[in-house]
Structures are given as structure tokens and as C-alpha cells.
């Protein structure tokens, strides 16, 4: 695998514009500006969601400790969220199919799959809206307890990312219908795709950490693991 990529890369280095846009001056790395920008942005966004998820993890269990109901174990609806996690996961598939379509010059396929992706994204958002209102009616708001605050902020920021993604996809769809997305513009679709898949993998993490892993389990595991870690670090530190 590695060798194949390297061969191809060695061959392709500095030949970034051999196919496609001939009017773009070649880049030093042979990689496209915008794609590099997107990856750098996603690396940065890791830190963004890392901070949010860490905040959630730190406050996990605070509501139970203080006795401020509702607790996550009472309120989280695993089957329901599993379904919306599945929807988002499948939207990643339709997204990558949209990209594969435009790369082959299949405009109709692009439109169908883009529309499907945007639709699945919208279903996810609708599900989130329903979930939020349901929780609110059950007495969980931003102000209720630390679970409410960190849960709504984390999933809310994720939802905002999904919303931007849906708008982006709809824009691409609109442009495509107007004939604005050509086969050589497949990068436009690819960039939206990278963003979209990133939003999806963030949800993979959130789904596991927030929904599936119960509080009591995690405190034990977490404390156990970190006690062990602290021992190692203390040993290392004693060298200094």
C-alpha cells in the first residue's frame, strides 16, 4: 500500500495540474491549496470538538453527584439516537457516492446523492430538534444541571456544524442544477465531503462517549486507568 502511494506520489509530485485546471500554477507540494486548507482546518476542528468533549467528560456524573435530575441514564433514548446515528452514518455513504459520481462525470448521480445526503442530514437535524424539545419537556434545560449544560452545548455545536454542512450541500446541489459543477470541479464536492465526513466522525465519538457509555462504568474505568497512569508518570517524574 505505502509503496504504491509513494510511487504514485513520487511520480505525481509537482505535477498537480497535469489533469484538471491547467491555469492553476503548480504548487510546491503538488497538493491543491483548498484541499490542504480543508485538512488543516479539520485538524484544527479536532481541537475544537476535543475541548467540547473533554468538557462533557469532566462534568459527566456531576448531575448524579449533586442529585439534580434528570440524569442522563433516565433521559437518553438509546434506540432513538442509534437510529439518527445510523442516518448520519449513511449520509456519509451517499456523500462519497456523490463524489464518485461527479468524478466519473455522472451529473445525475451527483444530484441524486447530494440530495440524499442533504436529506439525511436534515433528518438527523430534525431528530436532534425533536430530541432537544423532548428533553426540555422532561425538565432538562441548559440551566438544570451540568449534564444539561454540557450535553446541549456539545450536541448543539455539532448540530450547528451539521446545519452548515446541509446548507453547503444544498448550495452545491443548486449549483449543479444550474450546471455550475463540472466534472473537473469535483474538488468542490470533495471538500464538502471532507467536511461532512468529519462531522460524521465527530458524531461517532459523541454517540459512544455520551450515549452508550454509562456513567458508573466510565468512572470506574476512568479512575482505574488514570490511577495507573498517574503511577507511571510519578515514576517518570521521580527521575527528574
Amino acid at each position, binding site marked *: 500500500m505505502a509503496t504504491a502511494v509513494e510511487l504514485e506520489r513520487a511520480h505525481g*509530485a*509537482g505535477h498537480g*495540474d497535469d489533469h484538471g485546471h491547467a*491555469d492553476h*500554477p*503548480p*504548487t*510546491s*507540494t503538488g*497538493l491543491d*491549496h483548498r484541499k*490542504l*486548507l480543508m485538512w*488543516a*482546518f479539520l*485538524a*484544527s*476542528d479536532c*481541537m*475544537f470538538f*476535543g*475541548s*467540547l468533549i473533554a*468538557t462533557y467528560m*469532566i*462534568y459527566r456524573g*456531576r*448531575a448524579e*453527584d*449533586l442529585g*439534580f435530575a434528570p440524569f442522563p441514564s433516565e433521559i437518553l433514548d438509546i434506540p432513538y439516537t442509534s437510529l439518527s446515528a445510523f442516518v448520519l452514518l449513511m449520509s456519509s455513504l451517499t456523500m462519497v457516492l456523490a463524489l464518485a459520481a461527479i468524478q466519473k462525470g455522472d451529473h445525475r448521480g451527483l444530484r441524486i446523492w447530494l440530495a440524499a445526503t442533504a436529506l439525511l442530514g436534515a433528518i438527523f437535524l430534525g431528530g436532534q430538534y425533536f430530541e432537544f424539545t423532548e428533553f426540555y419537556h422532561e425538565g432538562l434545560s*441548559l*440551566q438544570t*444541571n*451540568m449534564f444539561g*449544560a*454540557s450535553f446541549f*452545548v456539545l450536541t448543539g*455545536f455539532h448540530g450547528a456544524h451539521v446545519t452548515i454542512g446541509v446548507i453547503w450541500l444544498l*448550495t452545491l446541489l443548486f449549483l449543479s442544477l444550474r450546471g455550475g459543477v463540472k466534472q473537473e470541479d469535483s474538488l468542490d464536492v470533495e471538500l464538502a465531503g471532507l467536511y461532512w465526513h468529519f462531522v460524521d466522525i465527530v458524531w461517532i465519538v459523541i454517540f459512544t462517549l455520551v450515549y452508550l457509555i454509562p456513567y458508573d462504568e466510565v468512572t470506574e474505568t476512568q479512575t482505574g486507568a488514570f490511577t495507573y497512569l*498517574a503511577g507511571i*508518570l*510519578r515514576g*517518570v*517524574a*521521580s527521575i*527528574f
Partner: protein
Amino acid sequence: MASVAQPAGHAGPATQTVARPATKKNIGFWSWITTVDHKRIGLLYGITAFAYLLIGGIEALVIRSQLIAPNNDLVSLEKYNQFFTMHGTTMIFLAVMPLSSAFFNFIIPLQIGARDVAFPRLNAFSYWVFFFGGLILSLSWLANAAPNQGWYGYAPLTEKGFNIGRNVDFWALGLQVLGIASIAASLNFIITILNMRAPGMTLMRMPLFTWTTLITSILIVMAFPAITIALALLSFDRFAGTSFYIPYIYDEATRQVVARGGDPLLWQHLFWIFGHPEVYILILPAFGIVSEIIPVFSRKPLFGYAVMVYATATIAFLGFGVWVHHMFTTGLGPTPNAVFAASTMLIAVPTGVKILNWTSTMWGGQLNFTTPMLFSTALVSQFVIGGISGVMHGSPPIDSQHNDSYFVVAHFHYVLFGGSIFALLAGTYYWFPKFSGRMLDERLGKWHFWVTFAAFNITFFPMHFLGLEGMPRRYGTYGEGSGLQLWHVVSSVGSYLLGFSFLIFMYNVAVSLQRGKKAGNDPWDGATLEWTIPSPPPVYNFATVPVVRHRDPLWEEKYAKYEGEGHAEEETLETTIAGIKIGEGQVPDEDALEQAERRAAADDEHNIHLPNPSYWPLVTALGVFLAAFGLIFSYPRIPIGALDLPLYTAAGLLVLVAGVYGWSLEPAS
């Protein structure tokens, strides 16, 4: 050394072949508003940031005047809080960072042989967002609600319960907006440096300033999201009634303290996860500038270039693993303290390597103490003082003694003023000819340097004593018999002198812009690509894209001994400068030559390809500004569906969306 032959014939095979692009001479107001030219954006950054530097300086003078006498009441203690908070915030976010940005913008494309940055409109957007972020912070003075909680805004001081006014709102949203600017600019520079280097300029042939810019940008991109979230959570606490940083509240109704479950320490963690890389964001560009200047005025290539690059990268990487040393006194316990003390000590090593390399560069060189060189050597010596007091703080027991005392204030002014500002001044003297086409006056420059140097030490050295004698940081006053007054007076007098030194500098700039000596392409006998082109550079920078064969491309071009016609026939090209061999220029590899050819072909085809000016970056930035502004002045409000949005925020979001669409649908060139 300015007299050394100009590389006249060396504009290369370039000058004849390519037709000069038709460039309209745009000088009007609107041309600056819509500009996407990196040089103009650099100047805008520089001018705005210098204005903020002066404002921050005036705030500092107020602080020093307040402390010149015990029990002084020049300003009220509430106002004093605002002054020190705004001094710190202004200097860090509105002066030093954007001044570095000014150099990034102006110099980086020139150093790597590019015509502009990778995303010219994103660059303009970064500037305008920075401008509006600064505006939000400055507006706080007009609203008589300047931030008053200290530049690192520890919770729960920032919470509604302690800070009911809008002070913190201005701060939180101002920094939020500035963060967008920094991240956008840094992404742009990462791509620019990786992707737009001249053919033949491998990573290890990049000038060191380019390297530090790259690494600083990576730091910004990875560090700012942490503070973005920290500030977002703070905003939720303030606007939406959450309690991320509030452990308890006092319930008026039941007259009881009620637990809320928040943790103020989380703020400190998130803030310093950003804050410590931020320290390197402030100092690494300075290191880069100095690494450019010292070799030129020692007439030796930089000693240990590769090690210098690795040291910079190591500092950046370790910079993410030391944040807890700002929190040694919060009681995290012996394990975190020991681990982070060790990592803090470790990070001193690559920093020390840099000091060694600069001194070794000067060792045996033909030193020429022009003003930029004076400032650079001053950085090396003063940064050592600040660095060593920093290592002292790396030890938790010592830190417990120094924490929140004037000793810490002395420490970070030695690294920030003695480090960053000295380097930025050095850079200004060094590159001013490139900015303006004229030299800054050397006689005034030397006066400026010596006054600054003396005043800096008079101002900040006594703070070490003040701290050890027990003067706490951020106190607006001290008692009559405390024995602290002597050093406070010395420090205040020094600060006035420091203020005066900036008057010399401004006078120098004003005079030199009118009557300064014409600079020509290469007044300092420089080693890097920016000196191959006219000063100030034409809009398109390079008539032909240069091909780089050497780490010091211009020295190689000027001093390599060539035989025969072209360069490429020689296997190795020995280059000596001042009798010292600086290595062998390599024959450019085929890839580089081919790339150069293809770029030249692109030039031929399209003339030189320049981005069009655009309003959209400004419109988009305006949307960001309005959205943030609406959160501070949250009335009037309009209901949209389930949301009850402040009017300005709603309007701002609309403008933002319009801006983004206008931008992405507008052809880039």
C-alpha cells in the same frame, strides 16, 4: 555593508522574458478597503497594530503613574482594574500578534518567492476581522465598561455574580472575533508556506523566519480552538444561565449557598491549553526575525540552521505539554506538578539551543552593529534574563513564592518586551527599506535603541525586587510604610523614558519617510529573496519566479564562484562570504527547473496572474462584527421561530451569509 554590489545582473533570466503585467495604479481609499494584496494588508496590519501598541503603552503609563506613590488615587481602583486588563489584552492580542502578522503578510510571500498568499481574499478577511475584533474591545472604553478581570479572565471573576456589567462581554466576544481572524490568517499562511515556495526551495532551504511563521501558524490553528470553546462556555454562563465555571451560587430566596457543579479550574485548564502555546505564538516570530538579522550583520550564515528548525518545532510541540505550570498553585497535586515541572524544564533546552546558535553565528563573524543588529543582540541578552526567571518558575516550590507577584510581571515583560517587541523593532528597522523604499535614519535609530534599552531595564528590572519584597500583581495601590515605593518610582520613571523612546521612533519614521536615504533593492547585503526585488516591491513582487539553489539564495547568487556560462553546468558551486565558505549551492534538481518552466509558461499565458480586489471579505467580516456586537448589546431583540435573537446578531448573521455567498460565487481572479 550596504555598499556591496547590487545583484544587478541577477534578477536572472527573468527580466527580459516576461512582459510586465498591466497594473492600474490604485491608490485611493477604496483600493485599500478592497485590497487583497498581501503587502498592503501587511501595512494595514502594521499600522493598526502600532496604533494599538501606543494605546496599550498609554494604558501602561497610567498604571505606572498610579503606582508612583503609595495610596495614590490617580484612577479609581475599578478603573485601575480596567487599565491593567486592557493593557495586557491590547498588547497581546492587538499589538504583538498583529505586528507579527504584519511581518508575516509583508515578508513571507517575498521570502518564499511568491506573488501573493494562497488565499488573498481570506487574508483580507483576516485583517478585517482583526480590525473589528479590536474595535469591539476598544468600544468597551466608550461604553465605560472596559474589561476588568485581568487578561486571563479567571472564572468565577468573569461570571455574572461577580461582574454584572458588560465588561466581560466585550472581552469574551472581542477575543472570540480575534480568534477567528487568527485562525483564518494562520490557515492561510500554513498553505502559503507549504504550497507556494519558489521552485527549488525545499523545506530545509526556507529562511528561518518562514519556518517560525509556519510553526507559529500551526500553533495558532491548534491552540485557538481551546480558547474559542472556553470563551463560548463563558458566554453561555453569562448569557444563557449555565454554570460551567460556577461551583456555587447564593440563592437569594432561600438564603442558602447552592451547589451548581461547575468547576472554575476548567476555565484555567482550557485557557492555558491555549495560553501557553500563545506564549510561543508571541515569541517564535520574534526568534525568526532575529534569526534573519543576525546572520546578515555577522556576515555568516546562521549557525546550526537545521538544529534551529528542529528546536523551533520542538518548542512548539512541547508547548502543548506545559500549560499546567501556570496552575502550580491551584492544588492539582504532586503528580501533575512534577510532570509539568519536568516538561517545563525540558522546553528550556531547545530555547537555550537557539541562544547558543545566535551567539555562535556572531562568533567570528564580521559584526556590523546597525540598529536592527543592536535590537537583535539586545533580544538575545534580555531574553536570557526572562528565560532564566521563567525556568525558575518552572519549579513548583519557587513558583508558589513568585506566583501573582511582581516577579512574574518582570519575567513576562523580559520575554515579551525584551523578546517580542525588541525583535519587532529590529524587524521594522531591517525591513523598513523594503516596506517604504527608504532607510530609517541610523543616528536616530541608535538613539532610539539605547534609550529603549536603558528605559526597558530601568522599568522592568526593579519589578524583580518589588516581587520578592511582596508586591502583588494587579494591586492598584500599596501602603505608605511598605518600603515598596523606591522601586515603584524607579520603574515608573523608566516607563516614562520608555514612552519617550517611542516618540523618537515615530519621529524617525516620519522623517525617514520624507527624507530617508533611498534604499535600493538590497541595502543590507541580505541573503534572502525579498532583497532581490525593488523596494517597495511591485504589485506582482517577482517579475519571474526565482529558482532557489541554496539556503541563502541571494548570497549564493552574489558570491558563488561560477565558471562558464550558466549555473547549472557546475556540479557544486562553492560560495564564500567574508572569506568563510558557506557551503555549496546545489544544482537545482530537475523537478524545480521543470516547475519553474511551468510557472513561467503560466505567466506567459495569462500575463502575471493577480487576484482581483474584493468587497466580500469586508462584508463577511462586518457580519461577524455585527453578530458579536448584537450579543453584547442584546436589545432590541427579534423572535425568529423558537429563537429570540438580538437584532444586530440576526442582521449580522444575514450579512455573514450574504458575504460568504458573494465571496464564493465571485470568481477569484
